[in-house]
């Protein structure tokens, strides 16, 4: 660990990252800078390693080589606020079938805010965001009772309920109706304009969302 190296970049910076999965090297010597107030679109064919790269940037998958910095500090540094600032939405929705929508959402919000919010205002926020998403009034339904599209919307609601500075989103636009796509794009732009860092993948180009940087996982 060479602490002496001065990292000049704000936001998220990955230096000479090598990522592998089951013995196979997916990505070699990757340098990536995600600056504050930018939206980055990550593309590449299926199995190219987009998800692995995202999981690596989220600190879940250990990299073979290289380091990741958040605001010039290694993300695993004890003083780093990275995991406070990060929302990582994966393919799996990370919601419990046995809990209601409100219970699921307030669980994550409480975990992140560490009790720094009254339960009353939290449940108000939850009903507001569900209303925006077109699933208003369903907060006391069991998560398992919802349709796949509705479940996806619930997972997106976390972006609004939990304060963060960086979003890493794996296929957030998949299976969304027109209206919700517009909603997510607007919220993403708003987040960016407040200084947020966004990295997302998508199969198709998203017309509603202007991006600042495109990153491809490609052969040379």
């Amino acid at each position, binding site marked *: 660990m060479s602490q002496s190296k001065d990292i000049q970049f704000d936001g998220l910076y990955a230096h000479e990252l090598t990522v592998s999965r089951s013995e196979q090297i997916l990505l070699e010597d990757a340098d990536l800078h995600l600056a504050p107030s930018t939206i980055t679109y990550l593309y590449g064919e299926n199995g190219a390693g987009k998800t692995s790269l995202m999981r690596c940037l989220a600190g879940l998958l250990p990299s073979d080589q290289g380091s990741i910095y958040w605001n010039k500090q290694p993300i695993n540094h004890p003083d780093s606020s990275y995991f406070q600032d990060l929302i990582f939405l994966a393919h799996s929705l990370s919601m419990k079938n046995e809990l209601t929508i409100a219970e699921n959402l307030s669980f994550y919000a409480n975990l992140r805010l560490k009790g720094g919010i009254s339960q009353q205002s939290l449940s108000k926020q939850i009903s507001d965001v569900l209303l925006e998403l077109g699933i208003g009034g369903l907060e006391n339904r069991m998560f398992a009772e919802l349709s796949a599209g509705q479940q996806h919307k619930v997972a997106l609601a976390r972006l609004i309920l939990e304060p963060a500075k960086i979003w890493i989103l794996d296929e957030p636009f998949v299976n969304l109706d027109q209206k919700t796509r517009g909603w997510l794009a607007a919220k993403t732009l708003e987040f960016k304009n407040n200084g947020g860092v966004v990295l997302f993948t998508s199969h198709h180009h998203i017309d509603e969302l202007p991006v600042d940087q495109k990153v491809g996982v*490609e052969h040379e």
Partner: protein
Amino acid sequence: MSSWHEFIFMGKHGAYVWSSYMMSLIVLVGLFIGFRMMLKSLKKQVQAEAAAPESQKPKARKLKVSQPD
């Protein structure tokens, strides 16, 4: 040990003594042969894969950063 006879029968305990030594021999020689064969078959496998055409081997990818049009 006074005689070959005693060596083989071990004073009526031949079966116990010899089965202990034989089982040890079988297990350890078994490991020896197993490990040798493992290394040999790996060698063959590497040779076979080296003979395969270059294009079949998966290659690591790089990141390409660009600005949107």
